[in-house]
């Protein structure tokens, strides 16, 4: 049985769910149930896909029976199924959080009825992008998720959200147009848009043409992934959206861009032609992003800047094009999706409990709500890369790979990575000190909610009750679930890293992917066709094995 035959369900289920929730638009309770059930089913399916490719192997399915170079293929391998599972777990947690918020607010704040269908379509787009084995289908996946994200971004249509939405929509459309132009060029040059077929045919092109196509794709994906010179739109547009929406955007959307970059670099254009510019971009992304974060006084904006900054780590791992580097990058993507999303969810809770997400207004939360403090502290330390956590392990893997590579630029990136990690700790510690540790009276403009509480707590039970309404159990529960999931990535880092390294090996080798799509007799070009080629893959797995 070909397990990839079930892959299209990962896209279909959310779309059908979206249709159903759209029909149920007047029954918010049924709508919530349907969307949670559908997303759970999708997650189960994806877990099964991951389990069946856990030990390696790639399988592909031809949609509608059209043969590979012409029809649409969907490919399941370790990397794509790992991304699917992580992204669906995160989306499920965010969905439960959002329904909790909707119920607590009595559906007055925003048209929550539109939220569910749109959200499911977003999930479908993300799944489609991860599974696609065809450049144009990848584009369609991007468009599905982007169009859904436009709606989510401007949910409620308030002034700030519309303003942020305009920037976001225009930037996204421009990047999509660039992507589409690149697809047209690729088709013009090779006559195919199937990625496995392209892997064979792009190698035969003139180097000038090939580099042009390569740069166009990298720029298009770089805008979506928010790599430094192309990242200015992100901190501008993310913070204004509702908390769960920002959380899911921060977790998933940029990572889809990173995923596309990984596929471009490994499958379509192997070799190290653009490794140096990518490394420079990675260094600048890390440093500029985190410096931006230090200047912010709003927690959401600060987190948006750390998001940009940490994309740099993934690009760094990708740019090394070694098994160790790429494996660490794969692990880092999985880690970062989870952690960044949980931090944004906690920020949403801070906003509810403390009345604001501005560090000038929020204070004393550690005393008011110890649960919230723990929920913030664990992922925050994880993001900064404090030793036992997965953030540390991912960064360690990247730095090891950098040292292994040993070029001056790689060392510069290693230093930049350590510096960024320290500055992240500084930024996060500022949030901790201000929002959690200092007394409300010491804040510049303490929110009335914070000052009112001591009087209430004097009456005993009242304070406890106020806490429950301010922090609904569903929201705290789903955040807690995601934080535990993040800690789980730490606990199971050994097997995960092994899978990540294996997937990196498979991606750099390409044989498995091309054979899965085009059949076992497809010729696989030698890895080192144009330039010196990627690092010798032979001796690197040993480095990967040692780690566990």
């Amino acid at each position, binding site marked *: 049985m070909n397990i990839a035959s079930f892959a299209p369900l990962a896209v279909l289920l959310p779309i059908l769910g979206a249709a159903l929730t759209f029909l149920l638009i007047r029954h918010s309770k049924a709508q919530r149930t349907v969307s949670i059930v559908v997303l759970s089913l999708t997650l189960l399916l994806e877990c099964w896909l991951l389990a069946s490719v856990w030990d390696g192997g790639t399988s592909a399915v031809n949609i509608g029976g059209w043969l590979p170079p012409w029809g649409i293929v969907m490919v399941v391998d370790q990397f794509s199924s790992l991304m699917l599972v992580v992204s669906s777990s995160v989306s499920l947690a965010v969905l439960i959080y959002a329904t909790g918020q909707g119920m607590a607010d009595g559906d007055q704040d925003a048209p929550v009825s539109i939220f569910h269908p749109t959200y499911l379509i977003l999930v479908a787009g993300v799944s489609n992008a991860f599974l696609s084995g065809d450049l144009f289908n990848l584009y*369609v996946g991007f468009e599905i998720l982007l169009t859904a994200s*436009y709606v989510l971004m401007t949910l409620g249509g308030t002034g700030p959200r519309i303003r942020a939405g305009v920037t976001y929509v225009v930037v996204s459309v421009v990047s999509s147009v660039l992507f*589409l132009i690149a697809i047209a060029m690729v088709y013009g040059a090779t006559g195919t848009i199937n990625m496995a077929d392209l892997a064979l045919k792009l190698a035969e092109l003139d180097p000038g043409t090939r580099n042009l196509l390569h740069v166009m794709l990298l720029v298009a994906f770089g805008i979506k992934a928010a790599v430094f010179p192309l990242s200015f739109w992100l901190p501008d547009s993310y913070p204004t959206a509702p908390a769960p929406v920002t959380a899911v955007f921060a977790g998933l959307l940029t990572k889809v861009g990173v995923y596309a970059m990984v596929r471009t670099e490994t499958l379509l254009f192997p070799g190290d032609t653009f490794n140096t510019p990518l490394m420079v971009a990675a260094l600048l992304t890390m440093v500029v992003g985190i410096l931006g974060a230090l200047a912010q006084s709003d927690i959401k904006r600060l987190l948006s800047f750390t998001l940009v900054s940490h994309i740099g780590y993934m690009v760094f791992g990708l740019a090394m094009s070694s098994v160790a580097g790429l494996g660490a990058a794969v692990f880092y993507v999985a880690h970062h999706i989870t952690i960044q999303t949980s931090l944004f969810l906690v920020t949403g809770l801070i906003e509810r409990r403390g009345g604001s997400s501005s560090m000038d207004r929020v204070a004393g939360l550690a005393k008011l709500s110890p649960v919230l403090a723990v929920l913030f502290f664990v992922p925050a330390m994880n993001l900064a890369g404090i030793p036992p956590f997965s953030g540390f392990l991912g960064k360690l893997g990247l730095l090891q790979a950098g040292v292994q590579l040993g070029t001056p630029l790689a060392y510069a990136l290693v230093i930049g990575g350590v510096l960024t990690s320290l500055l992240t700790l500084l930024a996060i510690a500022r949030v901790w000190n201000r929002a959690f540790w200092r007394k409300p009276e010491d804040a510049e403009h303490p929110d009335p909610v914070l000052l009112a509480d001591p009087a209430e707590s004097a009456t005993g039970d009242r304070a406890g009750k106020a806490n429950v309404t301010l922090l609904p159990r569903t929201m705290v529960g789903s955040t807690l679930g995601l934080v535990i999931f993040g800690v789980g990535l730490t606990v199971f880092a050994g097997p995960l890293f092994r899978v990540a390294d294996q997937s990196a090996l498979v991606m750099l080798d390409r044989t498995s992917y091309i054979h899965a799509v085009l059949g076992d007799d497809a010729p696989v070009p030698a890895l080192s066709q144009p330039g010196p080629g990627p690092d010798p893959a032979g001796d690197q797995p040993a480095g990967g094995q040692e780690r566990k």
Partner: protein
Amino acid sequence: MSVNLTLLTVMGALYACGIYLILERSLTRVLLGLMMLTNATNLLILTTGGYAGLAPLFSKDTAPGEYNDPLPQALILTSIVISFAVTAFMLGIIYRTWVLAREDEIQDDAEDRRVAKTPSFDVEDDSVIPVETSEFPLTMIGSDGQSVSDAPDGADATVKVADRKLDAKKAASEEQPGSLNITPPNKEGGGQ
């Protein structure tokens, strides 16, 4: 392979005008620019399909080379649908901007402006600490719950803000409500 020069010229003109228009601040022009860009791209895809040929309906007598390449047309159809959806959404946003702001211009990000204007001096982190911080203070100022800035030593503490010199108390008042650095609390951001 022959190319259609008219199509290419039109495509180039559309790209040029489109790029010019999306650099404007007026939203309607940005929308027109986006439409031109997407349509130019559709023409580009059409061009990549090669020369014109017969409709790709199979018949035994036609040589394979005489058919037109149908794949780019399928791609164009998809991309037309997508750009249609985006255009409709952009129109909605533009209308909403007009309703809210009575302006067809892209608005500045208030928080971004505020951060840009904030002096690098931070009251909490950078104030001169006016009291003895050793473990064995001479006077117990500050430990009795009294504000540290009430200390006599602190009265003449000054800080440098950009190019001015202020004393520490005035610097603190820079961030009071009503000063330039403060934006009114936003309505939709929490605060239940």
